[in-house]
């Protein structure tokens, strides 16, 4: 089986995000990056499990600048066989990114293309579906389980109040949600091997950027917690009604 896992990087979850003065960009000074957890914990690990069960290769793909190589090698340390980075130095939108992935993947005959269900920074959930569209492949989003039997894939999605089970033929694209696999801690051997695995850098194809960030806004600071005396239920009700406006 030939498997592709598309990964992106996101700021480390404890990072305090600051914006640039004009509010159109995130200030990257001092920001530590990690691999997007949906990509790493679920998509990549499930791909590795499938490969371990049935043989094949797992390739990691990232669209981004050379700074991303460290995040990519983390994926190699966890167990991917090789990696590709499409060398794009500026921040681009989802459509541009999807176009680059599709251009690369179209000649590679992957059986499965994995994405995380979203990045934990931009929460777009867009790239996977767009790639599937460009490649004319079936797409299942937010999959919590994935089994492969020959060319038949059985994909489970968590939906409101229950589960949806979908059968579909490979090749296909899926985006991985919680439940698909469990985070793997890279072992020492994997970490040291990562350096020796191939990481190919390819040039992007020309494609227009169709959107522009007008402005980012930070959410309002959360107020401090109010403690209400258990004997004073009326006050609690009043606050929930008037201040929190939840009842």
């Amino acid at each position, binding site marked *: 089986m030939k498997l592709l896992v598309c990964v992106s990087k996101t700021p480390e979850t404890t990072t*305090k995000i600051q914006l640039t003065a004009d509010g159109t960009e995130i200030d990257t*000074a*001092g*920001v530590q990056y990690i691999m997007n957890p949906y990509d790493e914990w679920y998509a990549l690990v499930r791909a590795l499990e499938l490969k371990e069960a049935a043989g094949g290769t797992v390739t990691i793909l990232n669209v981004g600048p050379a700074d991303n190589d460290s995040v990519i090698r983390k994926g190699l340390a966890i167990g991917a066989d090789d990696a590709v980075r499409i060398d794009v130095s500026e921040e681009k939108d989802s459509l541009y990114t999807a176009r680059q992935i599709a251009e690369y993947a179209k000649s590679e005959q992957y059986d499965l293309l994995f994405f995380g269900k979203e990045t934990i920074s931009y929460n777009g959930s867009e790239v996977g579906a767009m790639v599937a569209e460009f490649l004319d492949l079936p797409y299942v989003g937010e999959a919590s389980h994935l089994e492969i039997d020959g060319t038949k894939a059985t994909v489970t999605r968590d939906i409101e109040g229950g589960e949806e089970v979908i059968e579909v033929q490979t090749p296909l694209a899926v985006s991985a949600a919680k439940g698909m696999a469990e*985070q793997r801690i890279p*072992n*020492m*051997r994997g*970490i040291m091997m990562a350096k020796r695995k191939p990481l190919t850098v390819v040039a992007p194809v020309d494609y227009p950027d169709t959107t522009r960030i007008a402005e980012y806004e930070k959410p309002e600071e959360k107020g401090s917690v109010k403690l209400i005396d258990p004997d004073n239920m009326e006050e609690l009700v009043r606050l929930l009604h008037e201040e929190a406006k939840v009842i």
Partner: protein
Amino acid sequence: MQFISLRNLRFMLHEVLDLSELRNSERFKDFDQEAIDFSLDAAQQLADQYLWPVYREMDRNKAYFKDGEVHVLPAVGEGMRALGESGWLSAAWGFEHQGQQMPLTVHNAGSLIFQAANGNLAAYGFLTTGAANLIREFGSEELKQTYLQKMASGRWQGTMALTEPQAGSSLSDITTYYEPQADGTYLIYGQKIYISGGDHNSVENVVHLLLARQKDGPKGVRGVSLFVVPKHLPGPDGLTDNNVTTAGIYGKMGQRGYVAAHLMYGEQGPTRGFLVGEEFNGLKNMFLMMNEARIGTGMMATGSASAAYYASLTYARERPQGRHPGNKDINAPQVRIIEHADVRRMLLFQKAVVEGSIALLLQCSLYEDTYRVTQDDRSRLLLELLTPIAKSFPSEYGNEAVSLGMQVLGGAGYTDDFPLEQIFRDIRVNSIYEGTTTIHGLDLLGRKVMMEEGKAVQFLATEMQQEINNAEQTEATREIAAALALGMESMQQVLGTLLQLAQRDDPRVFLADATVFLDYFGLHVIGWMWLKQANAAVRALPNAEGDDETAFYQSKIQTARYFFTYVFARTAGLRRTLLAETRITLNTDEAWLL
């Protein structure tokens, strides 16, 4: 829940210590910054998943002995196997032994993470590494084939079996003995006490690295040899019993999930042992493990103090209590205790001890790595000289730090709603095992300051002077450097006086205050470590990116200043004690101790 600072470990490895010599060596060339960071991240993940969650549980459901079996929580075995399978237990080994040739400096930074998360579990693993290292270094090919990978996987426990009822500090008095057999093996008779990891049901086998003396052989260290003595003998048909009997385990103040066993050999049938290294070289070879274990004990104490620091810091940031002196307004809200100067004193003390200890432990590890690749006298002697400090400073000052951590929590610290009371009990043993603090004082003053014509102390003075020379850039570092320079002058005077005493008097007189000297000397060493960190922070500060990074470097400079003002200042009193030739302790009649 935070128990250690990864940022601080990265600071030490990338900004304070110079690893370039290692990177230029064939053995360690693959360990660039990224490999180090990946390794530390992986260690943190393992610690978060397998070690920290069971720290309290291992205390509450302590190990127990029933029907001849030592029961520990299944989490112990799971944790050990996680450390084994991830490659941590054997990461520092060469490729020829399926290791990754990780520098000890990096390995020990990882170990500090495990020790902070749960020293009681980590210890089972790293004791096993230490025992396996003896087989790897001195054992026959057959022993290596039989034992190394099983131990590296965390499925077989390793121990160091030295202590006996009449031989604790004085190992040359051991009486456990051996008799050679025609087949090249040996029969072992005797008993060992307090053996950590000595027996438990979370592993398939226990492998004792045991010291015994030749039956009817010479007394003292000369007759002592080193053996592998497995609980179960590995053979073609699997494991068979080797008559190592567990008489019981000890009820302990702390580290209650980390077993210490009383073991008997050859009592219920023949116990077979396998010689490791040459006969009669036992104690010398065992020192490889003991030196490692001394650094390991320093790390364990540091890990505990680190966990206590972050627990008390978290509490101090949240607990409102009292108002600032002078604020008489009873309607004003209470301030968080982190705002009180005295709470900050207690937090800074902990930080100074934890990060000062980490710096020294990693510095020692770097000397060991450097020696491995260059075989230079300087690294070898500095490692030897500093090992007693690396063991005893974190243990002794760690006790004080954890006590202050508890103090920060007030009444809550004394209750078992918070981990402080457990950490307080757990850390205490570190100044007892692996040689009591006294034994390290004797080792430092009685042997190490004078070894090879005092060369080690000269090397240390040169290193310190270099750091003093680096301190010119800022007022803060200049002040610290001046205090350290003054300390070094006093130290020369103290050493001069003590060495004169050594020449003209009974060694009892010269060594009477060896523990005081150890404390005095150790404060200078940690002072040097703080100056080194402050200098690195001053270098990095102009290029710090973002508020967090700026605060990180400022915290280093400020903690260094704290250390010199509040802790290093103790050297003045210690010096006075050391220079007073009053012989108070020796001249105290035993009858007066009543």
